């Protein structure tokens, strides 16, 4: 039977990576010398499963590598070896190494085994330090034996096999008939059953085996093959195998008796002939599966049963509503029915919304998936920096969309590194300042409205506003004379090309600035802000939508085109009072609204549409905010507000400036979703010179 093993690869990768996460977090929990059995067992099981799976699916370099880990862990688990911190470090490195190996397999890339080989050698060195080293060697040794033993003899020999099972044979679950049939597969078989031992009918116990057998087998498979048939019952029966004759072959038979059947033999022998074939079969399949995996980040998602159940409930209700509506639709519509129909439709709308929410919940995972990587990161980074840090994780069960989660991880790593590197002081500095030696970094996640909020707090020195201001003046971001509040100054760290670190450090100064962090978060329709107090600490607050798949949108028209503006970025919509409009040159109009000057962007101009309303007082102005910058978009009219499902425009086309995606409206038409940040950029780019200056001067005025 041919079974395409590649269909299991994705599950294997997923569970192995999860296993590695478990290993990592448990390893971080370990204290050498004070060993918790369950912890070490959990670590062992993770390694064990990865080894078993990788062996089965043909990833030999992974299983070979995991084998040494497993051996060491087994010894620690059995108590025959003391766990040292060196072990923990090596094991942690192995986790990284395995992650890389699995990642490469998943993406169908060649793995660089240098690191693995070095680590493996270190493990082997540890293992060979004691007599237990035989344990490490034995598998390879056995394999050898097995391969030698499997050689066919090519000559026909006749054996007499006497099989006298003990009475309890059945209770081991073995069935003599199957053994005999298996024996018969080896060659020509004659069976003689010996019934003498069957007791008197009154003394018979149906549970027991009383029959013994003598077999005469003509086979070219050798004695070991016969032994293998009886492998599982050798302790439960008396088995004598005698060679009684046969034709001369190339191999003297005596050699075989020297080889005791070993465990690996059964696997080696059962498919001795097909072994090489099977291996060849696996690799192209592996490639195929891996390349499939490479095209998308991760293709499957685990969903808890209760989410699925609630979904089924929801569908049940929907079906009931539908049945009710169908019934109402039959026959004539009376006034009474009309009422019921409206109620039914309201019910349907309710059901649909619930269903939508439930479906969305399927994509939601607890943020602990992201948080879990931080204990390790904090441990490694703080060691490197010589700082003492305690990491607190709060709200780990807060759920957010899987895609958002995948994308928020990197910015968070950057922020945490930043807190460790620039935020927290050294233990000496902290003591001087009268603070506890050990600094604290807290990650906190919670839901607020339709958003998830993630806070990254440290109790370090806080942002140095003076330094930031100096730097900003140096870089020309602000003017010497500008009056800025502390918060406004702190905001400057998110400006492109800003870095306060005096020296570019290994930890956070990798040329990736806070501006990149902000941009990444904004690309998720989120925002980030910072609050800081000198000497007390800083808090970075990230706000993200719960999902990227659905958006509350405001439909607007420009000429005959319908666009969607994300509701979250709309501040207000108004009719323009021409008296409040100034022209600042370059054709740019600004609206004075209360204390602010708001540049007016004509959507039809930016998108090059003709036939739109061009007079400011005839159209409507939608004030939107992005990047703490407000602009007004001139549109012809506002239509409904509705939730829209976001579809990718890039999937089949390419990125379009000023457009973040598309959706399909109720009538089946495609409508484009406006990307405010992109639009502002587009407007700025399109009008060079004076206009750009105008916006900038406004910006600094705002700031």
């Amino acid at each position, binding site marked *: 039977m041919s079974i395409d093993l590649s269909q299991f690869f994705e599950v294997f990768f997923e569970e192995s990576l999860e296993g590695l996460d478990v290993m990592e977090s448990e390893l971080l929990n370990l204290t050498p010398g004070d060993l918790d059995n369950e912890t070490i067992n959990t670590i062992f099981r993770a390694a064990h499963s990865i080894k078993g799976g*990788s062996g089965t699916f043909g990833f030999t370099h992974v299983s070979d590598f995991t084998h040494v880990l497993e051996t060491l862990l087994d010894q620690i688990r059995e108590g025959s070896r003391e766990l040292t911190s060196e072990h923990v470090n090596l094991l942690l490195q192995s986790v990284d190494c395995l992650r890389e190996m699995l990642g490469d397999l998943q993406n169908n890339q060649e793995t660089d085994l240098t690191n693995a080989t070095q680590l493996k050698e270190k493990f082997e060195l540890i293992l060979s330090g004691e007599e237990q080293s035989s344990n490490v060697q034995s598998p390879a040794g056995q394999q050898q034996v097995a391969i030698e033993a499997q050689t066919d003899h090519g000559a026909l020999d006749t054996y007499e096999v006497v099989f006298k099972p003990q009475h309890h044979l059945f209770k081991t*679950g073995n069935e003599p008939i199957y053994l005999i049939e298996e024996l018969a597969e080896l060659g020509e078989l004659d069976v003689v059953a010996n019934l003498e031992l069957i007791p008197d009918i009154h003394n018979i116990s149906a549970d027991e085996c009383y029959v013994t057998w003598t077999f005469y087998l003509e086979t070219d498979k050798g004695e070991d093959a016969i032994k293998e048939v009886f492998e599982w019952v050798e302790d439960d029966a008396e088995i004598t195998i005698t060679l009684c004759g046969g034709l001369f072959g190339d191999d003297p038979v005596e050699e075989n008796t020297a080889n005791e059947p070993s465990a690996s033999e059964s696997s080696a022998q059962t498919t001795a002939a097909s072994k090489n074939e099977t291996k060849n079969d696996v690799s192209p399949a592996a490639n195929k599966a891996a390349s499939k995996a490479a095209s998308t980040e991760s293709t499957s998602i685990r969903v808890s049963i209760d989410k699925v159940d609630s979904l089924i409930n929801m569908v049940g209700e929907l079906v009931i509503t539908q049945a009710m509506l169908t019934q109402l639709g039959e026959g004539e519509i009376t006034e009474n029915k009309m009422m019921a129909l409206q109620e039914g439709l309201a019910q349907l709308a309710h059901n649909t919304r619930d269903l939508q929410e439930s479906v969305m919940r399927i994509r939601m995972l607890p943020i602990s998936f992201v948080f879990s990587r931080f204990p390790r990161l904090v441990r490694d980074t703080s060691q490197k920096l010589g700082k003492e840090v305690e990491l607190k994780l709060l709200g780990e069960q807060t759920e957010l969309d899987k895609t958002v989660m995948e994308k928020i991880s990197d910015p968070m790593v950057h922020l945490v590194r930043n807190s460790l590197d620039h935020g927290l002081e050294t233990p000496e500095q902290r003591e001087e300042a009268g603070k506890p030696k050990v600094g604290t970094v807290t990650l906190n996640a919670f839901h607020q409205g339709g958003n998830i909020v993630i806070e990254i707090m440290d109790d370090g020195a806080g942002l140095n506003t003076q330094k930031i201001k100096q730097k900003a003046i140096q870089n020309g971001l602000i003017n010497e004379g500008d009056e800025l509040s502390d918060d406004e100054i702190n905001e400057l760290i998110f400006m492109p090309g800003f870095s306060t670190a005096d020296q570019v450090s290994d930890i956070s100064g990798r040329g990736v600035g806070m501006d990149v962090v902000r941009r990444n978060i904004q690309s998720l329709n989120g925002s980030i802000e910072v609050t800081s107090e000198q000497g007390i600490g800083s808090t970075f607050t990230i706000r993200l939508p719960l999902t990227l798949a659905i958006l509350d949108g405001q439909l607007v028209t420009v000429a005959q085109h319908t666009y969607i503006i994300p509701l979250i970025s709309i501040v207000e919509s108004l009719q323009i009072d021409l008296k409040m409009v100034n022209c600042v040159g370059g054709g740019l109009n600004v609206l004075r609204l209360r204390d602010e000057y708001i540049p007016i962007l004509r959507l039809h101009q930016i998108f090059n549409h003709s036939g739109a309303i061009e007079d400011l007082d005839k159209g409507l102005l939608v004030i939107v905010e992005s990047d703490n910058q407000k602009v007004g978009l001139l549109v012809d009219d506002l239509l409904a507000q509705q939730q829209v499902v976001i579809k990718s425009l890039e999937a089949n086309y390419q990125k379009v400036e000023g457009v973040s995606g598309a959706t399909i409206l109720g009538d089946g038409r495609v409508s484009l979703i406006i990307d405010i940040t992109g639009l502002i950029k587009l407007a700025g780019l399109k009008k060079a010179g004076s206009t750009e200056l105008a916006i900038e001067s406004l910006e600094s005025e705002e700031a």
Partner: protein
Amino acid sequence: MKKILAVDDSASMRQMVGFTLKKAGFDVTEAKDGSEALEIAKGESFDAVISDVNMPVMDGITLIRELRALPAYKFTPMLMLTTESGLDKKTEGKAAGATGWIVKPFNPDQLLAVIKKVIR
């Protein structure tokens, strides 16, 4: 159709074992650890049990011992999945009442060849 209970904490191994056996015409029920398997086994009957050894909550050896003690599983073939480094586990499993063992790693053909020894 003969029924087999397949127990493994690793989803990929469980799927592979289950898929292979189903393709060979067996009715397969999967369980993710010994305790889940024991509960299932008490509720219905199986013609054979295949179990991994190292599992959380309840390991394979305990599972086999518990099952063997049940009247319904007195004669049921029970196979354990072991790695070559778990040789001593073999003896332990045998003492607990295991019928035989299957060495990890194995491929589907090897699995079926071994299964054939106890159930057809």
